[in-house]
């Protein structure tokens, strides 16, 4: 088989079989909690000024801002973890489209994480509690 025909064959194979297979793998995968990224900060977490339409959420976002190294190691169970660019529960609290502005699951998981972190629980213990309640 020539180089060109191998390329043609691979293109056809990907179009007819590969994409559905890849899609199915993505749907069925059961990802674990993410590993907190080295040097992660809370600089993208929304501030009080950015939460002017939801002032009741300011204490929650402030609490998350204090523990980015913890929240970045938690998988969100609301389904947003499937979105492109989403890494961890911390992603739910970042930038203008932060899902925790509207999603009660992102909010609940964040509140549990903040409370348990303040109580001195480890990341693993917090993961267990969040999985037990929301998983």
């Amino acid at each position: 088989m020539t180089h060109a025909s191998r390329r043609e064959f691979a293109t056809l194979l990907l179009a007819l079989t590969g994409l559905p297979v890849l899609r199915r793998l993505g749907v069925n995968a059961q990802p674990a909690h993410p590993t907190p990224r080295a040097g992660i900060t809370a600089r993208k977490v929304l501030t009080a000024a950015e939460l002017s339409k939801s002032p009741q959420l300011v204490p929650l976002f402030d609490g998350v801002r204090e523990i980015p190294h913890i929240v970045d190691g938690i998988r969100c169970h609301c389904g947003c973890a499937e979105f492109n660019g989403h890494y961890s529960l911390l992603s739910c609290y970042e930038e203008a489209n932060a899902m925790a502005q509207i999603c009660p699951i992102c909010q609940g998981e964040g509140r549990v994480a903040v409370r348990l972190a303040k109580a001195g629980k480890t990341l693993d213990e917090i993961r267990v509690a969040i999985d037990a309640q929301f998983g």
Partner: protein
Amino acid sequence: MPGSTRWSLVVLCTLVLLAISGRQATAQIKASELQTIAQTVDGTTLKVTYSRPRLRGRSNIWGTRVVQWGEVWTPGANDASVLELSHDVMLGGTKVPKGKYSIWMVVSQDTSWTMLLDPKWKQFHTDHPKPNDSMIRVPVSATLQAPTVEDALTWTFPSISARGGTMAMQWERTRVTVPFTVTPTLTDLLPEAEARAYLGSYVLTNPKTGKEDGKLIVTYERGGLKGTFDPNDTYLQTFALMKVAPDLFTVGLFMSAEVYAGGEVYEVLRPDFMITFTVKGGEASVEARGASDELYFSGKRVAASR
């Protein structure tokens, strides 16, 4: 043919193929249209995808060339009907592992039929596979005289419980049913030795008023922890405390005090009602929180057992 022209032709053919495959579902009238029905019970989903043959004026189709007695028949049309399970399921008392199967039935004149689940799920209805060891055999009940007529072959889930339900297939007056149970995600059972640490009467404090306003009585009955509020909560009544993590429980509801006497949990209030016990030495405390982590109550044990 130059390489670049041939390359362009391949890309064009690929695009045409993709376009055609995307239009098939909507652009063609079929004698047996496609349907998908899915039922989720306790996180396990059973999905049946099948084409629905219609009677089209025919009657008494069973035992004729449409569906012959003794035939290994797929309850559908076109491609064999497919059952997809998201987790392991007990179907008619037979364990069926998570996966995707083509559905076949050995059609019989009596009421005991056999459902064959073939891991080779992509088959045409005329393939009529011979029963073999790779298939899972499930005994199912059939009636040839159902009270109503289904013009189009229909799969349904007519009954659902906390732990399972019934799958049914009907065409004309022939109806086949098979019970299923799912793998429970939680149990209300707990070893008595583990439960003992939590037993007793807890005086509760209302976080809004800071005042004591009732008790939580935790007992061990029927192999698990049970909770009751004093004064009695008419919605929760006597409820199951179902362990979800070390010292962390959620609430399982029973239909009524009468059903509780031998019944099963019909709803689990997770993530809306989570109860954490803290036991240190002989002292124990409790707190309950909601899905937003709001504190419902906290309390301290005043009597270790009732």
